[in-house]
């Protein structure tokens, strides 16, 4: 019965053990009682969860897609469970997927791009990453998983801020921004979530961010790419960083397409996420583009407005990005 309905939004909750994922999850579930959730968990049972909820426990099964693309991995367990959930008559409004602290977010995100059935029935709403304010700097040094979870996130909650000094929060924010300039950064204390200025952030809006919808990339978040800053220079080349590319000259659509396809095919393993709003020559509409590793999605969305400046912005997050070369190649698409 999925065919006539809108795809069901899925929020992926990542973060290291002890970062406060379960506390947040329980608060979301108890506060949004008019929304019916299916909860998919990985490592342990959730205590005190309403037994009316649909809960499914899965064992992570990462499958390589046999299509010649080495980084193209999907989560076989998710494909199976998401299809099985569609067999219920009693439906749910949204799905919350909690991953283990050590899970690689890439196969999770790629599952939503690569599997035709998952794509039809569900849509990835956003990746939400919880970090512990006191431990994140150490974790970023020691574990690539922490870096990846930040690189893939659309929303990052720096949790337990009451346990650290203001300077520590600022240091955590700077380190996070160096990896991922486009995620929304929030603060958390004892299950309360606020924005950086201390305003309360509603839990239900955490679950309806539409971060993977191309329209959203463009509309709801005007600050989005404009604010993207380049990574700090004290990081090594092998670290995860980002680059923001801009051009006022219209891009040649074919050139961009050729460049991006080649770039993702050859370097997609190291490019974690890509997002862009592009001004294509002779096109009245904006071209919105995004990718997770090699898997990309792009389309013309809304018209450029008469009072709007036609410009292109593209942000890449990746390991060991050759920034000078990327910039040169991007600008060459405008000639």
């Amino acid at each position, binding site marked *: *019965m*999925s*065919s*006539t309905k809108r795809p069901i939004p899925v929020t992926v909750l990542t973060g290291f053990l002890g970062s406060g994922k379960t506390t947040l999850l329980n608060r979301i579930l108890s506060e949004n009682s008019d929304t019916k959730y299916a909860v998919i968990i990985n490592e342990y049972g959730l205590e005190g969860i309403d037994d009316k909820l649909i809960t*499914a*426990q899965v*064992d992570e*099964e990462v*499958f*390589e*897609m*046999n*299509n010649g693309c080495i980084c193209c991995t*999907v989560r*076989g*367990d998710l*494909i*199976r*469970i998401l299809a*099985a959930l*569609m*067999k*219920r*008559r*009693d439906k749910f409004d949204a799905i919350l997927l909690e991953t283990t602290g050590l899970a690689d977010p890439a196969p999770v995100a790629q599952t939503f791009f690569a*599997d*035709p*059935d998952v794509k039809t029935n569900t849509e990835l709403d956003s990746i939400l990453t919880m970090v512990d304010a006191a431990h994140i700097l150490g974790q970023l040094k020691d574990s690539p998983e922490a870096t990846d979870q930040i690189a893939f996130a659309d929303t990052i909650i720096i949790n337990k801020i009451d346990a650290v000094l203001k300077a520590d929060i600022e240091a955590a924010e700077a380190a996070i921004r160096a990896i991922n300039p486009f995620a929304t950064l929030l603060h958390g204390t004892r299950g309360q979530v606020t924005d950086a200025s201390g305003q309360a952030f509603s839990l239900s809006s955490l679950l309806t961010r539409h971060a993977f919808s191309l329209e959203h990339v463009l509309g709801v978040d005007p600050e989005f790419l404009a604010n993207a800053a380049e990574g700090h220079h004290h990081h090594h080349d092998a670290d995860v960083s980002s680059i923001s590319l801009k051009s006022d000259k219209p891009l040649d659509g074919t050139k961009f397409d050729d460049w991006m396809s080649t770039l993702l095919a050859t370097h997609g393993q190291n490019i974690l996420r890509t997002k862009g709003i592009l001004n294509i020559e002779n096109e009245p509409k904006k071209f919105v583009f995004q990718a997770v590793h090699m898997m990309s999605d792009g389309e013309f969305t809304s018209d450029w407005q008469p009072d709007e400046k036609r410009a292109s912005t593209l942000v890449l997050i990746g390991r060991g990005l050759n920034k000078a070369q990327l910039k040169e190649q991007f600008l060459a698409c405008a000639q």
Partner: protein
Amino acid sequence: MTTNPHTPHALNTPINGLVWNADTLAAAGGEGTLHLLRPNLTKPLAVQVSDAPLMTVIATPEGFATADESGRIHLTTVQGETTLLADTKYMFLENIVYFAKKKQIIAATGKSVTIINADGSTSQLPHKLPSTIGGMAISPIGPRLAVSHYGGASILALDNTKNPPRLLPWKGSHLGLTYSPDGKWLISSMQEQAIHLWRLSDGMDLQMRGYPSKITQFSWMSDNTTLGTNGGGGVPLWSFATEKGPAGTQARVLADSGVQETLVTSLAMHPKGPFCAIGYTDGLTLLTQTVEDRAILLHEPNAQPVQHIAWSANGMHLALAHANGTVTLTDFAALV
């Protein structure tokens, strides 16, 4: 005017399986009900089998066996009496087959296989598969069970469980599985929109690619050598008439929609004659003559994908389930 050969029944639930036992049709409902339908019966008999959604239904000599979301297996007679056979406790159990020789139901429970005897007692085969099992098939010529998984398929001996499995390797995730009716070939459907074929005499294997979507259904023609699948714009016909199978040949395609978005979602070959019922993503259903590829209309497009099609064993009745939870019975005699 003859009478309308089609009788629709709105069951208003996801239909998670459709199977005939003689002249009784069972539809497994996503609300835990097994809906029993018969031609000439105006109203389906709704048997509340479980409080959990039914994930699939198969036919057994006594009636039907269902698997539900919480892992229980129930038996239901064609009259509608239902009993709990066993509780595997495996969440989202959706893969069961009937092993006639020993009157057992075999269930894929994660990385292992559970055997359920007629008295409800259960045991597990000792083999641990490399991943969660995708599909299962019983060999038509011997007491063997094939299971698909990540990295290929394995054939398990059902008479001597101490025998090590025979691994048929091929990289990637293998989902559905079918044996050719002569037992000489095993065919899997894959995560990457292809089918994989193994010739069991020597392990030679072939990959058939080029499908625009995932393949989830197989159907063998009554000639016992031709396989059709869903997942394409039409139904590709793969021939296993020679030792080489379809190697080096192009599939003949039946009833190609010719439209990129309109794909075959379900198919069922007629059990006796040269016909194939084909349902599409837009709800259109055709009855195709397989030799000449001529078709008659069974169901107009209704924007509801066809999810299951099943012929009764004598080929006189056809059932099809649309995604909106409607099952339509068609009287073949009134049609042709």
